[in-house]
């Protein structure tokens, strides 16, 4: 085979790739290591071997009431994603299975709403939230995050639904299936993987959102992104505790993210790269 690579070359590529990968991952790795150190160790200079103490994790949870922002993050990211799916599934479905001449224009227009810089509507949204009492409420922020991600959700679902072959529907109709049968027995099973991928990616995006969460919350509804941002002053947390809080904030989404690499490419490029 012409493309067979000598094992010496493979060793070389492997070493180079691992060095690059470890360098890129290093800041995360070092944060994990520091979170397992005591405060004295954490500022004692470079050391990759921690004492494996969990005191920082305990301290973050007792002193800083970590579970409140964590719960908020879960509620906001799941809530906004589910809300978006409820609105987007019918829309994407209709556009994929009974497209009209304007479907393409509608999709492009939806995409264009995603291009609007958040800061451009900061003033009105902030004032609306202040005056309607939505400020620092989970419901207000859930709706915001839902609106922000709705175009991506519609787009992702659309690209998945469009791949479901239309002939299957026709075959089902020939067999006398009603519209209800079509939806429940034919389309839904084929659509579930696409919906699951969309859900996964959107939970990640909503979890990591850090503009509106910081602008529109103070204490009650603040998710982890706003909670962590409040430690920007050096007095806020000590090194090991800051690391522990960071690890707790990113661990769930990091693990979800590892499972969603493919969907990420597809979702964030609006199907332009698959």
């Amino acid at each position, binding site marked *: 085979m*012409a*493309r067979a*690579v000598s094992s010496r070359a*493979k060793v070389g*590529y*492997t070493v180079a*790739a691992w060095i*690059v*990968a470890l360098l*890129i*991952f290093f*800041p*995360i790795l*070092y944060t994990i290591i520091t979170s397992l150190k005591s405060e004295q160790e954490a*500022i004692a200079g*470079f050391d990759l071997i921690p004492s494996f103490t969990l005191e920082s994790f305990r301290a973050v949870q007792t002193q800083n009431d970590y579970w409140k922002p964590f719960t908020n993050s879960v509620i906001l990211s799941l809530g906004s994603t589910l809300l978006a799916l409820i*609105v987007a599934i*019918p*829309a994407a*479905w*209709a556009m994929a299975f*009974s497209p*009209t001449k304007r479907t*393409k224009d*509608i999709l*492009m227009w*939806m*995409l*264009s*709403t*995603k*291009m609007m*810089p958040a*800061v*451009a*509507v*900061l*003033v*009105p949204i*902030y004032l609306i939230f202040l005056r309607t009492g939505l400020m620092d409420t989970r419901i207000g922020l859930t709706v915001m995050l839902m609106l922000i991600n*709705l*175009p991506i959700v519609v787009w992702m679902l659309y690209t998945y639904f469009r791949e479901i072959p239309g002939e299957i529907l026709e075959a089902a109709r020939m067999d006398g299936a009603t519209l209800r049968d079509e939806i429940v027995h034919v389309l839904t099973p084929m659509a579930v993987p696409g919906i699951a991928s969309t859900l996964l990616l959107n939970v990640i995006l909503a979890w*990591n959102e*850090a*503009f509106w969460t*910081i602008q529109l919350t103070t204490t009650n509804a603040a998710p*982890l*992104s706003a909670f*962590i941002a409040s430690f*920007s002053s050096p007095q806020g947390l000590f*090194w090991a505790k*800051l690391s522990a809080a*960071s690890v707790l904030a*990113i661990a769930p*989404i*990091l693990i979800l993210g*590892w499972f969603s690499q493919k969907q*990420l490419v597809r979702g*964030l490029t609006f199907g332009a*790269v698959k």
Partner: protein
Amino acid sequence: MATRQTASLARLMRAPAIILLLIWMIVPLGMTLYYSFLNYNLLNPAGTSWAGWFNYRYFYTDPAFFDAIRNTLVLVLGVLVITVVGGIAIALLIDKPIWGQGIVRILIISPFFVMPPVAALIWKNMIMHPSYGVFADLAQVLGMQPVDWFAQFPLTSIIVIVAWQWLPFATLILLTSLQSLDGEQMEAAEMDGASALSRFIHLTLPHMARAITVVILIQTIFLLGIYAEILVTTNGGPGNASTNLTYLIYRAARLNFDIGGAAAGGIIAVILANLVAIFLMRAVGKNLD
């Protein structure tokens, strides 16, 4: 094939999403436009009056505005160059046969899933801190003076952080594109004696062109809105050295309570983003047909 019944059902199914996005697009933007013509300060709401073009003129003649535009451009371009060049290089490397490719991919993609405030704090405290950071330790080992990164090179430091967050995205997209490259064509070129460099320039790069365009455009949309990384590290300072347009508008609205001025800045941001968006829509639109 759609009957009239399914057509009207389809309309009904589309309606909620369209109406929601229509409201989301028109109402706040309309309000921003309206506010941008008002003298409106939250500290003195009773003194609100019509301002005409004053807010725009004020924004336009403020030296901070030009600093912010310049910083925005430097930030976007700096990150784009690092992520695209780095992304191509890393994608080419991990596309090669290597042991543990799955784990390597996972390690490389990870920074993308780190939320912006955490990414900023990790770099600020763990890596770039002048006394406790890894860079400072490294400088000490090499016998050099540790650098106070955020004081001396604020914008560069932020570029490094943001590039670290987006390098995985660029790498992943470019890798995906690379993997769809026709292997046989490559082999043929190789047998014809084309060098690795000329294969890269004449086959690989044209094949990746579309993915590179998409990476550039999508990142630009997000990079224009960089906010949390600045808030957590430099607060836009020292002076305006690391203030981008997003941060400038945030400061006008939330710290100076200048609703009119912030709204005018917002409209300018919309115009800038739209220039980029037009190109993105064209690139993505081609894929629909």
